[in-house]
């Protein structure tokens, strides 16, 4: 990028009302620092306290998913603490709502299980989401989950619109790019 391209880039960010964007490595320390800056910008934001809390909650769930599940890991795949993995997260403002987007690479074998988890959430009512959340809270931790199997349900509960997601193929790689969009 030269200066003029950087200006175009900055103008685009301003026009699209992007309040936060990060691409790179995600570790718990990095997520915690991002959480700080998001809290600060939310203090200034003209929205309800409830929307601010939901935005923060979705941010943490999405960012920690990248730490745990991105297929681009700097730390060994077997390591389940102090993990460092790559991805991106973005927060924007449109109309009177905030939205979050995140992306990370996922192994081809993870695409079908992710779809299975996310697809039903798109058509569930808030009541159904809350009930599924309560059931999952009381069940045993699912195999292969580093959290509680509650992450996507938490995000769906906090969202004001159905979740949007897609998988995009990568050039010269079997992995897929996973994108998730949440409007709060």
């Amino acid at each position, binding site marked *: 990028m030269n200066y003029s391209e950087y200006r175009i880039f900055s103008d685009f960010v301003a026009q699209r009302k992007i309040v936060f964007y990060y691409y790179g490595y995600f570790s*718990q320390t990095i997520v*915690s620092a991002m*959480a*700080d800056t998001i809290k600060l910008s939310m203090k200034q934001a003209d929205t309800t*306290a*409830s929307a601010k*809390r939901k935005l*923060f*909650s979705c941010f*943490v*769930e999405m960012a*920690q998913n990248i*730490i745990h599940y991105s297929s681009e890991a700097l730390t060994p795949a077997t390591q*389940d*603490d*102090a*993990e460092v993995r790559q991805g991106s997260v973005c927060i924007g403002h449109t109309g009177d709502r905030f939205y979050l987007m995140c992306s990370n690479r996922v192994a081809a074998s993870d695409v079908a299980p992710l779809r299975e988890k996310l697809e039903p959430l798109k058509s569930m009512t808030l009541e159904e989401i809350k009930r599924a959340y*309560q059931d999952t*809270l*009381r069940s045993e*931790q699912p195999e292969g989950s*580093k*959290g*509680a199997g*509650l*992450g996507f*349900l*938490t995000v769906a509960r*906090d969202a004001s619109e159905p979740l949007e997601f897609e998988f995009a193929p990568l050039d010269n790689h079997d992995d897929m790019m996973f994108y998730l969009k949440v409007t709060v």
Partner: protein
Amino acid sequence: MENLYLAATADSPEVDFRFDTHELALKGESYPENAAAFYGSIIHQLRDYLAGCGDGTTITVDVALIYFNSSSTKMLFAFFDALNSAATRGVRVVLNWHHDPEDDTIGDFGSELHDDFTALEFRDLPTVS
């Protein structure tokens, strides 16, 4: 047994368990990378302590968490489950649930604890921050 104190960090709450006076407190934010590891050892010590509590003991638990992520939620549920088990066999457990009255998520979670863990003396304490 020895009291347990862990200072709050950016992503984990203050843990102040005064086993000698039967006062347990959790305060702050909770979104550690590995909630199972963080709460696992706390719950382990809680169980050891509860095993030594007889009838007639009154335990006061103050929880003032302003945010917890999904994996912490799961572990907190296990934490209250352990307290409830002790309460069903005769230990008196008072749970003071402090929360911002405008925070529906934490208010709802408190109601669920109240519904599920009926042996706990649940006190809903909305406090304006």
